[in-house]
Every structure is written in C-alpha cells, then in structure tokens.
C-alpha cells in the first residue's frame, strides 16, 4: 500500500508542525479536539490508574506470602482486591487499547483527519476522569469491599462501604466507553479514505469495530444494573432484594450480560494489535485475512450469549447451564481460528524479534493458555470443582494480563515512534518484554495449581500447605512489577533522548506509516487514496529491499 516516492517527500519534517508542537499550553491540551492529543490524555490517565491498581495488587500479593493474616486487616484485604479489580477492569483494561491506541491510530489507518465526533471524543475523556474521581474518592474515603462484581444483596443491602460512590464512578465511566465505541463505528463507516474498501481495512480496524459493537450494546446493561443497585440503596426499590420480592440472581444475570462481553472488550483490541504486528515482523500478508476479520465479529456475537457460565453454581437451571456451557465452547472456535491463522502467518515468513513481535508472540502463547483453561471452566462439572478458586483467577489473568496487557504493551511499542517521533531503546525493551513474560508465568501458573487444589479466591488466610505456591506467585509478581517498571522509565526517557524516528521505522504497511512521525494535526497533507490490500509486504520489500520507505 505505501509507495516509497511519497514517503521520501514526507521525511523532510522540519517545516511542518506536528500535533505535539501545535500548542504548548495546558489549555491547548485540555480543550483539544485532536484525536491524537486525546489519546495522549488517555494514555497518561490510564497509566496512573494502572499504577494505583498495581499497588493494590502488590499489597495483596505481599500479604499472601504467609498463610496468616499479618500484613493488613481482613477488611482492608477485601478492599484491596476490590480496588485492584475495579480499577484494573473499568479504568485500565477497558479503555486501554481502544481509547489510547484506537483513538490515535484508527483515523490514521482510515486516512481520515479525525474521528467523526471530535468533541464527543474529548467529552469521553472528561467523563472518564469524572468517573475516576468518584472511584478515587471512594477509595480514599474508606474503600469498598464487595469485589469488582458488586453481587447483590451484599452490595445493595449489607455492605457498609462506599458502594454508591464506586458504582456512580463506574456508571459514569461507562458513558465514556459508549461514546468511544459509537465514535469508532461511525468513523469506520463514514470516513474511510477513497479506495479503502472493507476488505482492504487493516485487521486492527475489524477488531476495533467488533469491540465497539460490544461497548455500544453491552455497557448500557451494566449502567442499568448499577443504576438499580443505586436505586435499591437510595430509594429502597428492591429489584434485587429478596425481602422486597426481588431476586439477587437477576443482578448476576444483568451484571454478566455486560461483564462477560467486557472481557472481549479487553481481548479483541489486543487481537487486532497482534494481527498488525505479526505480518509486519514476518514480512508477509497474514494467513486468512477474512477469517481473522470475521472471527472478531463471531467473538462479539457469541460474547453476548455466554454470560450464564458465571452462574453454574448460583442456582441457575441445569438446562440453562447446559446451553450456556455449549455456547461458551463455541467461543473457542473463532478464538482458535485466530491463533491458528497467526501461527500459519509465521510459516515461511522472514521473522525478526523486535520488541512488538516478542509481545505478540507472548500474547499468542498466553492467550492460548488462558483460552484452553477457559474450556475447563466452561464444562459444567469441572466448573463446580474450580468455581471461585484461584483456578479462575489464573484463567482470567492469562486472558486479561497475558492477553490484553501484552497486546497493549506490544501496540504501545509498535506505534511509539509514530506517537512521539522517537524510538525507544530496543535492548531494554526486549529485556523487559522477556521479564514480563517470565514474571507473568511465575505469578499466575502456580495459581492454576492452587485453585485446582482447592484454594478459594478472595481468601485472606489459607492452609500452610499452600504457602510454597503462594510464595512463588508473589515472587513472580515482583518480577512482573519490575518488568512493568522498565517500560514506564525508558519510554519517558526516550521522549527526551530517544533516536528521532523516521515516518516508517518498521517498514510497515498501513496508512498511519505514510505520514510524518509524529503526524501533523490534520494527519495527512492530502487525503490518501488506497489502491491495494492492507498487508502487501512482498511488494514493499520487493520495491525497496534495504531501508524501505524511510
């Protein structure tokens, strides 16, 4: 798709103003409607929340090094894992790739000057920050101890902690997610560059589109669930309260109708990132483009039909359980289609192991582990055994951290030169990627075993025979923490001292690499015209074997 002749022209970047130098005042950032600046605002805020959520997890893991409750009080422990869950899920993972990378890259990939609704986009960030403030207030005021799932009637009737403030925070933040998804769908439909047909779109766009569908259709259901919890606490409307004729299981149905698809809000964008990285670093078009694309939609559709697998032991009818079990197995099909296609893409490729590729390969492995154990827990009988144990904790961390966060970090490294105009230090970055992979496995693999042996999740004290595995897990967590600390440091360092990036340091396909690094405010000097498929690497490498489009 990129033609080297135009790339040569844009590399002369001195006379042009890029989006970063378009204004230096605080006001120019806080009132910006530029999707790239909004992406940076999101990047800063979700990083802050990631640190807070990570600190909560640190204390939890430190405390679990010993079988007794010695570091914090049991109530504090409950508040800590709740804070970790709420912050990581709603304030880091869900906005991570869509709001940061999606915001930055989607218009560039489409050859558009901005998202369809730039002011809504800015509003979504403010809404996110407002929701975050409510939640931070709840944490500072004394915390909340319901777990991130807010199960009624505990959340609606019994908990004496700051449930309302947290629920309001999540309710508000949901609107930011809705606005982001809505903006993406409209932009992808209406603002593609001339010639950019559906089947020429990068696979990242397909993933983001599927994610946006879930955001738009799922998030309102979470909103109404939390709204009803709030109404129960404020007005005494007992939709979930058995004393008032309500049904607590209904809360679980409504909550998981959103929160199971929400897992796919986290993983689908990562799959999109991996679908961009793998072709670039094996210099080859992806195997089965349309299969990867359509499997994203299959995952989005199935995601709405599997929520009942969280209720296998909640008193749901056994027949409903069987149907939900089969439907949950079906999700494995499009997921496996993706994994096989990525793997097949590597075949006969000329593979190189730059940092983004390390993350992408790590993603494929860890996601496979998380996905396969997902089949264990989707089986009715096995789930009775492992329900609410550390097996579940390990399973969803393999998906959410091993999958979503690896993809996010891979994407950050892949597009860092585009976002900042600087290269990150490759050696440090590779070292951290490997450290994260090792640390992650050491943290969470023992938890599979712990859970299978019967250690329940969310417990503060445990029998002594579990200590070895818990210490291994905590040791792994400290390596993982170090692995996250390095990128935070060297990426900031690279802003000042990193090498200046060329417009296309990876010789990658995709419209975003055809403009300068960092891009000008309007993205492209003139609207690009697309004449070819998305991943024509043979062509790129054939035309300019050395140096490529730089």
């Amino acid at each position, binding site marked *: 798709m990129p033609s080297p002749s135009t790339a040569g022209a844009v590399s002369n970047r001195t006379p042009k103003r890029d989006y970063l130098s378009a204004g230096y005042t605080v006001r120019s950032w806080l009132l910006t409607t530029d999707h790239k600046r909004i992406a940076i605002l999101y990047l800063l805020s979700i990083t802050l929340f990631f640190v807070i959520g990570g600190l909560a997890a640190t204390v939890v893991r430190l405390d679990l090094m010993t079988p007794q409750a010695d570091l914090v009080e049991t109530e504090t422990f409950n508040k800590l894992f709740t804070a970790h869950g709420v912050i990581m899920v709603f304030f880091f993972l869900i906005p991570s790739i869509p709001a940061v990378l999606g915001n930055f890259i989607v218009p560039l990939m489409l050859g558009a000057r901005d998202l369809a609704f730039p002011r809504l986009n800015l509003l979504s960030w403010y809404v996110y920050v407002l929701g975050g403030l409510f939640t931070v207030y709840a944490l500072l005021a004394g915390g909340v101890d319901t777990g991130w799932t807010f199960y009624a009637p505990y959340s609606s009737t019994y908990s004496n902690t700051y449930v309302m403030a947290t629920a309001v925070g999540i309710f508000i933040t949901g609107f930011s997610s*809705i606005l982001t998804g809505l903006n993406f769908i409209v932009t992808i439909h*209406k603002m593609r560059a001339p010639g950019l047909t559906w089947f020429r779109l990068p696979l990242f766009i397909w993933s983001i589109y599927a994610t946006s569908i879930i955001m738009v*259709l799922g998030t309102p259901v979470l909103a109404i669930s939390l709204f009803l919890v709030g109404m129960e606490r404020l007005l005494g409307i007992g939709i979930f309260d058995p004393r*008032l004729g309500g049904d607590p299981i209904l809360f679980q149905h409504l909550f998981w109708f959103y929160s199971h698809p929400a897992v796919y809000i986290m993983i689908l964008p990562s799959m999109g990132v991996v679908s961009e990285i793998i072709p670039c670093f094996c210099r080859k078009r992806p195997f089965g483009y349309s299969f990867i694309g359509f499997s994203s939609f299959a995952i989005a559709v199935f995601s709405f039909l599997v929520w009942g697998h969280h209720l296998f032991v909640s008193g749901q009818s056994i027949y409903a359980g069987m149907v939900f079990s089969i439907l949950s197995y079906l999700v494995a099909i499009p997921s496996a289609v993706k994994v096989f296609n990525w793997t097949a893409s590597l075949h006969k490729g000329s593979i190189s192991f730059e940092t983004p590729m390390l993350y992408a390969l790590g993603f494929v492995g860890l996601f496979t582990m998380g996905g396969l154990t997902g089949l264990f827990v989707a089986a009715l009988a096995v789930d009775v055994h492992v329900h609410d144990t550390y097996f579940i904790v390990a399973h969803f961390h393999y998906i959410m951290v091993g999958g979503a966060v690896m993809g996010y970090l891979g994407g950050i490294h892949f597009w860092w030169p585009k976002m900042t105009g600087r290269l990150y230090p490759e050696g440090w970055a590779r070292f951290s990627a490997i450290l994260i992979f090792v640390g992650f496995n050491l943290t969470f693999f023992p938890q599979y075993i712990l859970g299978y042996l019967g250690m329940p999740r969310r417990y503060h004290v445990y029998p002594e025979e579990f200590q070895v595995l818990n210490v291994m897990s905590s040791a792994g967590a400290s390596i993982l923490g170090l692995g996250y600390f390095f990128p935070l440091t060297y990426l900031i360092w690279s802003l000042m001292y990193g090498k200046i990036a060329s417009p296309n340091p990876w010789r990658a396909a995709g419209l975003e690499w055809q403009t300068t690094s960092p891009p000008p405010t309007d993205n492209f000097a003139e609207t690009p015209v697309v004449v070819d498929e998305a991943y024509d690497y043979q062509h790129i490498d054939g035309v300019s074997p050395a140096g490529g489009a730089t």
Partner: protein
Amino acid sequence: MRIETAPRAPSPLAHHFDDIQQQHEAGELGMWLFLCTEIMFFGGLFLAYTIYRTQDEAAFAAASHELDLFWGTVNTAVLLTSSLTMALAAHAAESFQRKQLLALLAATMVLGCVFIGIKGMEYHHKYIHGLMPLMGLPFEWHGASSGHAEMFFDLYFLMTGVHALHMLIGLGVLLALLVKANRGGLQGDFAAPVRITGLYWHFVDIVWVFLFPLLYLIGAR
C-alpha cells in the same frame, strides 16, 4: 490563524469532513447508535418487569387498576402530538421556515412540559394514596399478594421515572435548539440538528408507547 478580516458566517462543515452530506450521515448514524444503547438500557428494566410479572400476573393486573387510566391516556395523546410537532419542526427546518420552526419547537416543548406536569400529578396522587413504596414510605395495599403489588409500583416508578428523566434531557436539548434558532445561528445547516434531536424525541415517545400498555392496560378492564 487570525488573518481573516471579513466576518463571515461560520461554515457549517467541520474541518474533518469532506462534504456536508458526509457530516449529516455521520451525525444521523451516531444518533441511531446512541438509540441502540438506550434500547439496551431500557431493556434491563423491561426484563425485570417481564420476570416479576410472570411470577404473579394477577397481582400485577390488580395493581395496574390503581393507575389512572384517564390521565395516562391523555398523556399518551399529548406525547404523540409532541412527536407530530417535532416531525413538523424538522420539516420546517429543512424548508428554511424559521418562524414555523420556532413555533413548532416551542409547541413540542410545551407538550413535553404538559406530559411531565401530568406525570407529576399522578405521582402526587400515588403518594397521597400510599402507593409510593419509595424511601421507606408506607405501602398501603389491601388486596392479595402485597409483595408483588409493591414490586409493580417499584417498577412503575422506576420505568416512568427513567422515562421522565429522558424527557427532561430532551427538553433541555430542545431549549438549546430553540435559543440557537432564535439567534439565527443555524444558518445553512438548520435541518441536521433538528432532525437528529427529533430522532431522540421520537425514541422517547416510543418507549412510552410500550410503557403505557404494560403499566396501564394490563388490568384488562
């Protein structure tokens, strides 16, 4: 950036769109998507209604008798008429009839306010008769299965309350449009915002079209 001296009417075309048609299509698609989210939001309430009604249909029917069918019907008529004036307003905007547009927007707002007023009156009526089981207020039910009747009124206040909240938001948007149209600020691009606001307004109407039979008419009088 400040070189332009001649004050011209600001172009209705935002910088990131290629032409005005693209901008309009984007706006309308955006509103349709937003309405999808609204359907899912109300869907949770309708789900709760369905579940609790199937548990005890007789109690729901008996409780439904306590609602004021007359005022409910009047309100339905008022709201449907407001949809008509809203549709006519969009038409007036498209044909650049500013005075008609102002009148029709104002009429829509008046009808909306009448609806809210009648709703408030009904709420007050329920409060007096002890049929408002909110905030620990006493629920005086003399028939059978008081629990399910109470759930009916819980749902009644929830659903009509959330609906009324959407009306209030709609009224706010209409007010903003009215002020803008009055200042003549919609030059060249009158129709799009009016049409898009209309979509929202009609949606809120349609929600009521479902609420009215489910709440007022299930008594099968």
